[in-house]
Every structure is written in structure tokens, then in C-alpha cells.
């Protein structure tokens, strides 16, 4: 059964599983049918499940998002795809004004068990608007759930969980690592828990928190630190909102040092939230200033500069070393 697949194939596998086992699931978006999605995330699904279950839409993101809202209120489980997360903005009104509020507005009479998927993040030399990381907008919105996988196995398990979740989920896929590595991902329909961090590496000297494609650089930095004699605990946020602060607080209480790594713009991002939470709840444990290694407060540049924008292993190491050297 077990097969070695990439992250994007794990997405396809999860979609196929749910389409197969829950007839209320439908998937739609731009170019997801015959074309199988511009990243092939839906490759073969239309052929397998038919045009009623898997279909192309007109070119209108507000509409795609609104279709998710409306279908989900009527007992279906729509999985909408936005071709790139930089094109989600026209649909932000449907997300903020309706998806996130439907249950609360009707005191539970209606609800939105929908998933909105989008590839996000930089690093693939894509054109303008194709490389941004604006997950904080959705994380800031009360009522949404934001989930970001960072490995094939977590992509499979978390997407299953997202589709089964009774509330709206924004599911962002780090396209930079869509095909980076293969992993064994049994197609067993086993979901992973939402709202829970994943500890990818244990260590007592410094806590590194990240998510998405940056997990990769973060793990590399941790390996390097180990060579240097410092054991980093590496935590993958997994669910960005509502997130599992307990695991992080518990770790920081042990290590006393925290570096948060994210490719999002710096100001008022998810990294800020984690730092703030720790500064409130674990201040006395901190042996060093919290470090955020993030994208800059600049537009994600065209690709000549994108690697200068994205946090590098070196930048993470720099921050980690500073916290390790810090003395109160």
C-alpha cells in the first residue's frame, strides 16, 4: 500500500480519498479539470470522479470562494482551489464576511464546512503575485481555521482533517516544496489532528518554530546547530490558527530561547503572534530576546531578488546563535 510520493501528490491522494469516501465532497477551481491544476494537484481527479464532482470554474475568485460558502451551507463539502494565494484577495470578502461568520451569525443554524486550497509562498521563480505569504490575514480573521502542511505525510493527513472539519479551513500549500522530497504516505484515510503542533526534532537549547516551506530551512539550521553543539527543538505549527500555543510554551519554558521562522512580511504576522504570546505567558523563562526571522516589510520582489527576501539557513542560524549567546 505504502507509496513514496511528493507533497503535491499527497494533496491529490487526500482529495481522491475524500472524493471516494464522501459523496458530499466536490472540488473546483480554475484549470483543475482536464488540466489537472497548474501544479497538477488535481491530476486525474476529473477523469476518475466525473465533471460533477471535479470541475473548472470561470475566472473569478470571489465566486469560487462564494460557491464554497453557499455549497457548504447546504450540506456539501466543497474544496475550492485558488490558483495562487496571491489571487485570493477578491474572495477575502466572502471569507471574512461570510465563511467565518455563518455559524456565529445563525447561532449554529447554518455552517461552512468548506476548504479553500491555494499554493503559497516563494522560491520557485514565479511571476509577480505568485510568491507571497499572507497567511496572517486569514489567521487574524475570527472564525477561520488556517492550516499549512510541510511534508507529504502532513499534507495528506491535514488535508483529510481539513475537509472533514465542520468549519471553514484555508489550506495553504507551500509550493516551493511541492516536489522537494518524497515520503511514504499510506493511503489509509487517516487524518492528522488539527490545532496541534508537530515536534519534528527534540532539543533543549533553543526552540525553533516555523511552518510551510520554511520548515525545511529551519530543519537544516537545526542540523547545523547540532554540529555546533546546540540541540534545537524544531516545531512545525501545522495549524496556524487556532494554533497550539501549549506545545510552544512548554518548549520555551525548557529551552529559554525562541526563534520564529516565517516567510511572511514581518509586521503583524503570525510570527508576531507567537512572540507576543510567549512574551505574555513565558516571559520569565526567556533567557534571550525572542528572534523573528521573517520576510521583510517589502513587496515580495520579482525573482532576481526573491532568495534575498526569503529567510535563508544562514539568517536562521544567525538568529539562533544570537539567542544562544545571549546572557541576561
Amino acid at each position: 500500500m505504502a507509496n513514496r510520493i511528493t507533497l503535491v501528490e499527497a494533496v491529490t491522494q487526500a482529495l481522491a480519498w475524500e472524493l471516494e469516501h464522501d459523496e458530499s465532497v466536490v472540488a473546483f477551481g480554475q484549470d483543475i479539470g482536464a488540466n489537472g491544476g497548474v501544479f497538477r494537484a488535481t491530476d486525474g481527479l476529473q477523469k476518475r470522479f466525473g465533471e460533477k464532482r471535479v470541475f473548472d470554474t470561470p475566472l473569478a475568485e470571489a465566486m469560487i470562494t462564494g460557491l464554497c460558502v453557499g455549497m457548504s451551507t447546504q450540506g456539501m463539502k466543497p474544496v475550492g482551489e485558488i490558483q495562487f494565494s496571491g489571487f485570493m484577495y477578491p474572495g477575502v470578502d466572502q471569507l471574512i464576511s461570510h465563511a467565518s461568520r455563518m455559524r456565529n451569525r445563525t447561532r449554529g443554524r447554518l455552517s461552512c464546512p468548506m476548504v479553500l486550497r491555494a499554493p503559497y509562498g516563494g522560491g520557485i521563480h514565479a511571476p509577480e503575485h505568485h510568491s507571497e505569504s499572507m497567511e496572517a490575514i486569514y489567521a487574524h480573521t475570527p472564525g477561520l481555521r488556517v492550516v499549512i502542511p510541510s511534508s507529504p505525510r502532513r499534507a495528506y493527513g491535514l488535508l483529510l482533517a481539513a475537509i472533514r472539519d465542520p468549519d471553514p479551513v484555508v489550506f495553504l500549500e507551500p509550493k516551493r516544496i511541492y516536489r522537494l522530497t518524497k515520503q511514504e504516505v499510506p493511503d489509509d484515510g487517516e487524518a492528522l489532528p488539527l490545532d496541534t503542533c508537530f515536534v519534528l526534532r527534540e532539543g533543549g537549547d533553543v526552540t525553533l518554530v516555523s511552518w510551510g516551506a520554511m520548515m525545511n530551512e529551519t530543519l537544516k539550521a537545526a542540523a547545523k546547530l547540532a554540529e555546533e553543539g546546540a540541540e534545537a527543538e524544531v516545531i512545525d505549527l501545522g495549524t496556524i490558527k487556532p494554533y497550539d500555543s501549549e506545545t510552544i510554551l512548554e518548549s520555551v519554558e525548557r529551552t529559554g530561547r525562541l526563534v520564529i521562522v516565517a516567510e511572511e512580511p514581518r509586521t503583524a504576522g503570525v510570527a508576531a503572534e507567537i512572540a507576543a504570546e510567549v512574551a505574555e505567558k513565558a516571559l520569565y523563562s526567556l533567557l534571550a530576546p525572542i528572534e523573528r526571522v521573517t520576510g521583510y516589510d517589502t513587496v515580495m520582489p520579482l525573482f532576481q531578488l526573491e532568495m534575498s527576501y526569503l529567510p535563508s539557513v544562514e539568517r536562521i542560524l544567525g538568529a539562533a546563535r544570537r539567542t544562544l549567546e545571549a546572557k541576561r
Partner: protein
Amino acid sequence: MKTTARFEIGYEQLLDPDGKPMVKRLPAFANDKKTMLGLYKTMSLTRAFDTRAIALQRTGKLGTYASCLGHEATHVGVGSAMAEDDVMAPSYREYGAQFTRGVKPEQILGYWGGSERGNVYEGPAAGDFAWCVPIASQCLYSAGAALAFKTRGEKRAVVVFLGDGGTSEGAFYEGLNAAGVWDLPMVFVIVNNRWAISVPLARQTRAETLAQKGLAAGVRGVQVDGNDIIAVRKVADEALKRAREGKGPTVIEALTYRLSDHTTADDATRYREAKEVEAAQRKEPFVRTRKYLESLGIWDEKKEKALVAENKKTVDAAVKAYQEAERDSVAAMFDHMYAELPDSLREQREAALREAE
């Protein structure tokens, strides 16, 4: 230059402002006494409710309220054409339509009285959408609901109400385009009451009619006299039948007039002429309906008085229920955010409850 496409927009009116039929044969339902009495009674209850709600607001017992004065024939005509399992997506003043769906007056008061409990509908409305404040955004989720019905092969339609102002929003157009391309079972009811707060139709669009906006999406469009309950009901019946039969969506432009201020927070004298309102008053929907009923021999002064009394009782009871309802508890702010309360929110909930003590 050769001509590649031609279009026409039609207009339906069956009763003149004096209640006289303008065609030889009215639709069958217009001769059905029960139907016609039902329509009139709901219109009348709506008016009674609206009047009282404004009074409640004026005396500080209700929040901002959006009156439906003048729109009763459109709202009731469309609402009454719906099947129980159709779904309605209102904007924020279609009380008459909601009454046909079993929504209770006290719920509407509850909503404008600042509680989400007002949106917990039962009966035919149990699957209906709640009020939608962000103009025209209801057009998109309505398309989603319609697509769900189509996907499951259910013969159900979605009726979405929006205003003339709402037709300027991209969301209206995207919803319309979805309806067109997938032949969705939808009816877009554009309640053209000539004003969007202080903006008259001429500053909203250069289109000669709002029905023609359907053409942009290849969707059938029709105008109707929105103060003519029989015409409204007829075009709504037709549009809903087509929708349920898989014959595609319709845009209905109902021509009516907002006789009231936009909401109780508005003062329309700042921006529109009294004489325009007076002229519109002469075409309002009640007189002609009543006269038509009289011409059928099923209505008179006595019946009218009895109805007024009955409506008063109904509205009194609703106001009482509204005023006696408990205020929302702080917990309610948290308990419907997610199906299950996440840990982080549990903490915030506890803090808020502590503070409330």
C-alpha cells in the same frame, strides 16, 4: 458591420394603479380567492410590522432598522411563489418575503435588537440565509447553494434579493455569470426602488434597465411592476418554474420605490424631493391590490378593519416576545464560532465570563 446578436427586454404589468386588470386574462391564481387573500394579508401584516418597528426604534427600543415601506408587493409576491424547500437569500429589508417563509416578527425584531438569535429561523426558512449586510455579497453564496442543488439533482431553486445599488458590485455580476454558465436554478430579484441611500439610479449605472444586466451573462432578464402583486407573482412563478426545471436562471427587475428613509439612521429629505415621493406614493402597492380584491367581491371595509385588528394583535404579541426575551449571555459570543471551542478561545471565553461577573 454585420449584426451578430440581438436582444430585447420585456416589462410585465397586469394591474393599473387603480387595481384594474390591464390584460384580458389574468393568471389563474389571480382568480383564486384564497391565494389573493393570503397575499394581501401578508402584505398588510408586513406594513403593520414595519410601522411598529419604526416606532420602537424611535422610542429607543430597537437598533437601527431598515423599513420596507412600499416594497410589500415585490417581497410578498416573490416570497409566496417559492416552494418550501427553495432557499431564500435576503438582503436586509425583505420582511414580507420572510413572513411567507415562516420567519417570526419577533425574530426580525431580535436581529435589529442586536442579537444573532434573530437569525435562528424555523419552518420553511430553516435553510434560508440570514440577512446579508455587505451589499450583493449574497449573490455569490446563493450561486453556491444553487450549485449544490444542481449537483445533487434536487429540484430546488434559490431566490436572491438585491437592490438597484447592489447591481454595481462585482459580486452581483460574478454570481450572475455563475448562474448563466451552469444554468443554475436561481432567480435574482433586483428590487429597484430607485435609491441606494442617497444615490439615485442614474448615478448608479448608465444601463437603461437593470434587467438587461442579465445579458452580460447570457441570462434572461425581465422587468416587472414591483407594486403590482399579480405581475410580480406571475413572473416569479415563471422564473421559479424554469429554475426548478433546469431551464436556467432569471433576472427579475422589480420596479418599485423606497417610500421611507433608507434606515432609521437616514434622513432622506437631505437628498430627495418631496414631490418625487408623492408621485411614487400614487403608485404604491396597497390601493390597487385592495381595489382588485374588492372587484372580486372578496374584500370590504369591514374585513379591512378586522385585518387591522388581527395584525395589531400579532404585532403586539411579537413585540412582547421580543421585549421579554433575555439579553444575550457573554458565552454566546464564543459558543458559535466553531463547532467545537478551540483551546485558545476557551481561555478567552473564561476571561470574558470572569469579567462579566
